[in-house]
């Protein structure tokens, strides 16, 4: 029976090619819309998580009122970091500094927002090979490394560094002319976020000078634990030690917290989800329209099937197969187009817009679900297939 329904579905689906192509285009647009929403949403989260994921830490300490890395993190005393290193099982506890600035160079018309990160030279705080390799470079006064995955506005600087080994940027202050000149003496790869176009990395001392912030005001404390110790246990001990003076996260909790911030506390995640829902609704409408078209075209034939003694289950299978045919025929080209569009978008924004297998599977499941919903709605139309009307 399934084989029979599959065969008839295939024939009815492919009988009118122009209608089929029109329907596939419509469904395909909705699938691409869903892919773009998902891709952009992932890019938002992934770009925001570049730095948290690169932190060389098992446990992260933040100020008690810290909520997200979207903004300059509130500072807390470096003494808390030092205090943490006294706990049994803590291998190292290092400070990490982060600040938001605007910089420009002679080739840029306006200043652009960047993140400036300050790293202590006494240890590895960022798991980035380029940074680790160039720790001696950032020890020089006013020396910084620039993220070569920054947005295109920073391409001339990157090019300058690649060509001449260094480039200069300035930190403008309104009404005071040029305040500080930084020497970009190396590159690393991290990637921008949605809101910030580039990142600079320097030593903690340079960071202090550039931002005029004392070194005992740290953004984060990065704790490595000794082999054989349990992260959760050490985290609890640290939280007990620091009490209400600071927050203590495991690294995975920190990353999750950052992701949840975007998902729950900003309109961005909500907007992307709405976009996804719109894609689903548009897709259902197109599939419904196409199914209704096919059912209307073949209503007499369905009445014949009823007269021939085909049970309702056959019609479920038939319409289900037609709907499945629609979504699969629409999904495959949509996937290919999506890969192409992702590449264009990633190149234009420097955001990590990549097709992930689980997203491809998720959207395939959503599309199959759309087909199932459409089939369930359309099957009601089949009630009009009355074999009595076959008789003159």
């Amino acid at each position, binding site marked *: 029976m399934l084989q029979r329904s599959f065969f008839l579905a295939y024939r*009815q689906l492919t009988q009118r090619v122009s209608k089929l192509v029109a329907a596939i285009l419509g469904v395909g647009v909705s699938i691409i819309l869903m892919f773009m929403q998902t891709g952009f949403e992932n890019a938002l989260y992934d770009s925001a998580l570049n730095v948290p994921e690169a932190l060389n830490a098992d446990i992260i300490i933040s100020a008690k009122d810290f909520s997200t890395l979207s903004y300059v993190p509130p500072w807390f005393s470096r003494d808390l970091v030092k205090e943490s290193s006294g706990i049994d099982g803590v291998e190292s506890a290092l400070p990490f500094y982060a600040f938001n600035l605007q910089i420009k160079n002679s080739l840029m018309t306006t200043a652009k927002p960047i993140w400036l990160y300050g790293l202590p030279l006494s240890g590895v705080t960022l798991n980035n090979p380029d940074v680790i390799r160039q720790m001696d470079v950032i020890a020089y006064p006013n020396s910084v490394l620039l993220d070569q995955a920054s947005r295109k506005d920073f391409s001339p600087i990157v090019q300058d560094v690649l060509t001449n080994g260094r480039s200069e940027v300035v930190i403008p202050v309104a009404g005071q002319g040029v305040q500080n000149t930084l020497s970009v003496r190396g590159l690393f790869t991290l990637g921008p976020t949605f809101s910030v176009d580039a990142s600079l990395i320097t030593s903690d001392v340079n960071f202090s000078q550039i931002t005029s912030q004392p070194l005992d005001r740290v953004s984060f404390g990065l704790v490595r634990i000794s082999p054989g110790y349990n992260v959760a246990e050490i985290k609890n001990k640290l939280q007990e030690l620091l009490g209400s003076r600071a927050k203590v996260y495991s690294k995975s909790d920190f990353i999750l917290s950052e992701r949840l911030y975007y998902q729950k506390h900003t309109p961005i995640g909500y907007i992307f989800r709405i976009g996804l829902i719109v894609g689903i609704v548009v897709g259902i409408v197109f599939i419904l329209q196409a199914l209704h078209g096919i059912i209307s075209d073949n209503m007499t034939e369905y009445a014949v099937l009823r007269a021939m003694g085909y049970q309702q289950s056959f019609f479920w299978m038939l319409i289900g197969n037609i709907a499945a045919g629609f979504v699969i025929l629409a999904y495959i080209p949509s996937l290919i187009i999506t890969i192409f569009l992702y590449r264009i978008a990633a190149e234009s924004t420097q955001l990590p817009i990549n097709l992930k297998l689980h997203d491809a599977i998720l959207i395939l499941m959503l599309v199959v679900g759309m087909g199932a919903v459409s089939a369930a709605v359309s099957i009601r139309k089949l009630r009009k297939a009355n074999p009595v009307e076959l008789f003159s």
Partner: protein
Amino acid sequence: MKSGASGSAEQLPISQNGSYSPVVLNGLNYYFGSGEFRTQVLFNNCLNIEPGKLVVMTGPSGSGKTTLLTLLGAIRTLQEGELQILGRDVSTLSEGEIIDLRREIGFIFQMHNLFSSLSALENVQMTCQGDAAEMEQNRSDGIALLKRLGLEKRLNYRPSELSGGQRQRVAVARALVGRPKLILADEPTAALDKVSCLEVINMLKEWANEYGSAVVVVTHDNRILDSADRIVKMVDGAIVSDVVLQEAIQICEFLRKLSIFSNLNNSELSLISEKMKKRPFVEGEVLLQQGDVGEEFFLIRDGEVDVFVDSSKTEILSTGQCFGERALLGDGKRAATIIARKNGLAYVLSKEWFLHAVSTSPNFEMQIKNLYFNK
């Protein structure tokens, strides 16, 4: 003459000659609409269709033929009366069982209604809902049928690539391939030329003879009447005549050989034959009693009867001979007692129709009266 159809409310799922009947309907009424708009369209219809026969159902438009056909196909819901299809009482079947029942019925529609996206062979194969082995059997049967219908070079053609006659032949093959015991056809030849029409109807006739299927054809097409075994006529929602042609011809031949009917023309003879009913009798049965009031005219089809006048046996009557006519025309009293010598079958005409025939045929009336004046 009347066959299985009658006004009797005691129809059985088997026919009068004891064979299985694919269709038995009794006291069938049907209504369209509901409430104050409810209109009766079928009135107390009774019919018993035997296997192996091609039954043509005819009558003016709006007479209820198609409504009756859809009831026979279990496509409409039974409202009033008894309906047995292929041995099953439709009134007791669930919706699923009714759908299953339809699988055992072959349908042929006026507009062929083939699946436009499928080839001729694939259309035929759509009737099979069984497993792989059944499908393979269905496929080979389908090919054989299409070849038999002259479509061996069109097996893979879609309906749009076939002529009207070829499409209808595919539709016939589709209806026949499962060897259903009941085939229902709605105006199957209406859109066909003479050659195609004969091909289609001959195929149905052959199939009925070969596989014992009962074939019911609703039609206005006079070209197919010659092929019918039986013609059922409907007027205003009721079966008004039900003629088994072979028997009617046989009755006419019997009547023509009787001196009292020898001068009747074909039309008059067929009128009489149409109104005659079968009546089986058994050995020793008293068919007429001398002195009783005469109500029926008898024509012996099979068997023999003894004639007794005043307790003396005067003669033996056998196949093709008649009795009972004198009382209907004379003083109304039976002049003899008639007792069956062995089991047999008689055709019986009621006094009402006998006198009706007499009154509408002066030639006939005069012959009979002369006959009895001269006796």
